[in-house]
């Protein structure tokens, strides 16, 4: 009798322990529809699990993430952009994943360049869930009207095309059609720098090179275009287009002939102007350097485990799921993000995503580069952007601006 009682109690306790799944707190920065997609992935994960239960929380402001991690009450797993990896890792708040990856032999399938964006000082501090690259969208009708039957391939062609494609209102003189990818600003100077053969750091990673041939070419190109067309006029056009993609986005309504943008533009065009006759091409390469074709920037959305995580194994299990083939695939299909796995680039379901083919081909080409990862990289980028703005608005000469930048950024790498 006693024995039976003992066994009964034991069984109940074991049942309790095992049915009580361990909670894994996952905070994410995604909002809006992206958040819905993430919640669905969490649901799928929880249904597949007996050990862990992920609780998702939308945290649309990085201040909370920082405050919570700093006071040891942060999430067990969270997401961010690869641009913060260097900074966070150097401050010891990210857990290196190399050992776990080795133990579970996980990670061979990730696209090399994407995985590299998660590395700092040789260690891997996160895994990519998706990658962002930008390509040259072009309006076929507008190009044809101007007498072109193909996209501009080189920087020289780009400026030729652009000036011819830009049209002004005969009455007011305001730009009616923008022939240059001068909107949105945030996307393109870094991309053009890479595409035109530049880099922001030396190969050995010891010196920052804000003054590099790629940036020079890019800024010259932009400035020449702006000067010819009129800086005020361009400001009017670009600031009218706003920050987010809207139904009156100039490319979507057919007022912009060339545009550098990410894969999401596809789905928005499909929603707002399905009749738009457009194509997607590689960014231009520097005249005479065809071997550099297909260049540009690669950045990624990263999942990481804070070093203060209270359930590292659970967090790792979830990362393996959401960055795994199944999780990443549903993420990619639902919001059009390019997956960060080689195998998924060939997945037939994903290849059905509009415009995906062009993006995938370019990634496989391997000419893409990433912004250097180091603790002060955010500051580096914003200092450059500030100076670039002055240069392309004609407030500062190219040489002066770049010289100032070289001086200012000298101590950032220390």
């Amino acid at each position, binding site marked *: 009798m006693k024995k039976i009682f003992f066994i009964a109690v034991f069984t109940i306790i074991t049942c309790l322990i095992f049915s009580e799944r361990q909670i894994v707190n996952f905070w994410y920065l*995604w*909002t*809006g*529809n*992206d*958040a819905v997609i993430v919640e669905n992935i969490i649901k799928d994960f929880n249904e597949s699990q007996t050990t862990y239960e992920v609780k998702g*929380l*939308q*945290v*649309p*402001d990085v*201040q*909370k993430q*920082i*405050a*919570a991690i*700093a*006071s*040891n*009450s942060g999430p067990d797993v969270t997401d961010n952009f690869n641009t913060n990896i260097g900074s966070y890792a150097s401050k010891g708040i990210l857990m290196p994943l190399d050992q776990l990856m080795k133990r579970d032999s996980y990670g061979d399938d990730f696209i090399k360049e994407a995985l590299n964006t998660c590395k700092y000082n040789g260690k891997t501090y996160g895994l990519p869930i998706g990658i962002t690259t930008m390509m040259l969208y072009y309006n076929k009708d507008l190009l044809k009207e101007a007498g072109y039957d193909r996209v501009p391939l080189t920087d020289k062609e780009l400026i030729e095309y652009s000036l011819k494609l830009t049209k002004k209102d005969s009455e007011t003189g305001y730009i009616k059609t923008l022939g240059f990818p001068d909107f949105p600003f945030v996307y393109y100077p870094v991309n053009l720098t890479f595409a035109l053969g530049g880099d922001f750091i030396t190969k050995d990673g010891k010196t920052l090179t804000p003054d590099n041939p790629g940036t020079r070419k890019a800024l010259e190109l932009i400035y020449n275009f702006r000067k010819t067309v009129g800086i005020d006029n361009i400001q009017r056009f670009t600031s009218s287009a706003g920050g*987010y*993609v*809207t*139904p*009156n986005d100039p490319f979507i309504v057919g007022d912009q002939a060339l545009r550098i943008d*990410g894969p*999401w533009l596809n789905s*928005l065009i499909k929603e*707002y102007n399905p009749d738009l006759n457009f194509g997607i091409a590689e960014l231009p390469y520097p005249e005479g350097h065809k071997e550099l074709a297909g260049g540009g920037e690669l950045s990624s959305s990263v999942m990481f485990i804070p070093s203060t995580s209270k359930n590292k194994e659970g967090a790792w299990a979830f990362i393996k799921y959401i960055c795994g083939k199944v999780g990443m695939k549903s993420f990619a299909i639902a919001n059009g993000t390019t997956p960060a796995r080689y195998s998924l680039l060939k997945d037939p379901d994903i290849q059905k995503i509009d415009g995906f083919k062009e993006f995938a081909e370019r990634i496989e080409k391997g000419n893409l580069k990433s912004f250097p990862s180091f603790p002060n990289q955010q500051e580096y980028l914003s200092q450059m952007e500030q100076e670039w703005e002055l240069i392309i608005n004609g407030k500062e000469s190219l040489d002066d601006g770049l010289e100032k930048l070289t001086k200012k950024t000298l101590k950032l790498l220390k």
Partner: protein
Amino acid sequence: MNKRTSGKNFTKYLILILISMIFLFPFLFLISTSLKSMDEAFSNSFHLIPQTIHWDNYIKAFQKIPFLTYTKNTVVITLINVIGQLIVCPMIAYGLSKIEWIGKKIIFGIILATMLIPYQVTMIPVYMIWNKLNLVGTIIPITLPAFFGNAFYIIILTQFFKTIPNSILEAAKIDGASEFRIYSKIVLPLCKPALATVAIFTFLNTWSDFLGPLLYLTEQKSWTLSIGLQQYMSAHYVEWTLLMAASAMFTIPIVILFFFAQKKFVEGIVTTGLKD
């Protein structure tokens, strides 16, 4: 009061209506956008009255986030804050204006000084205190502080109390009334407009506070409306019409409340008229 003023009255109204239009326009714009389709909202020609009225924006906005739950949470947090500030701020202000004591000027100075420090640098230490107290995830960090008073309201009330003639209070003192009695029976009733002001400000600030609830509420079901508004915005795309519809739903209760509150406000004047 006499005929001479009718012409004056006309200009009064004209000016009031003109300014009202300027104030009203952006709000009408918000309402109008909230009733448009995305395409029309962004079309080149602007119509205040939408060509086709999309009431369904409101339904969609309502369905997209748990609107009722968020409203309930917001109301609870807001009411506690209003009650807290109304109990405490006038008391403190009284102590800083009508009692001659050693700390009067010093405390007032410190209160003013605390307002000069930007929240960004104190935010994390404050968060750490609440975290040590194990209260992150409850509404306490965003409600309890109301019972310690808010610098802005204390200062406003102190200035108002200073304009009440001391002679009234001294008369009461001679009649043997206690300090607390003077405060609650004489000063408070005299300051109804100022109290209404504090109530309205607390209501508004708590109602639309974003960072506080975001930092301290760790479960989606306890969120407030202002965080909920974020759910209409994605990284590359904003559902403008829904955002505007939600903003309208977010705003209209306060408009109605304010409309009635300020009537009380008008009554307040009548009482203050009794001053002498």
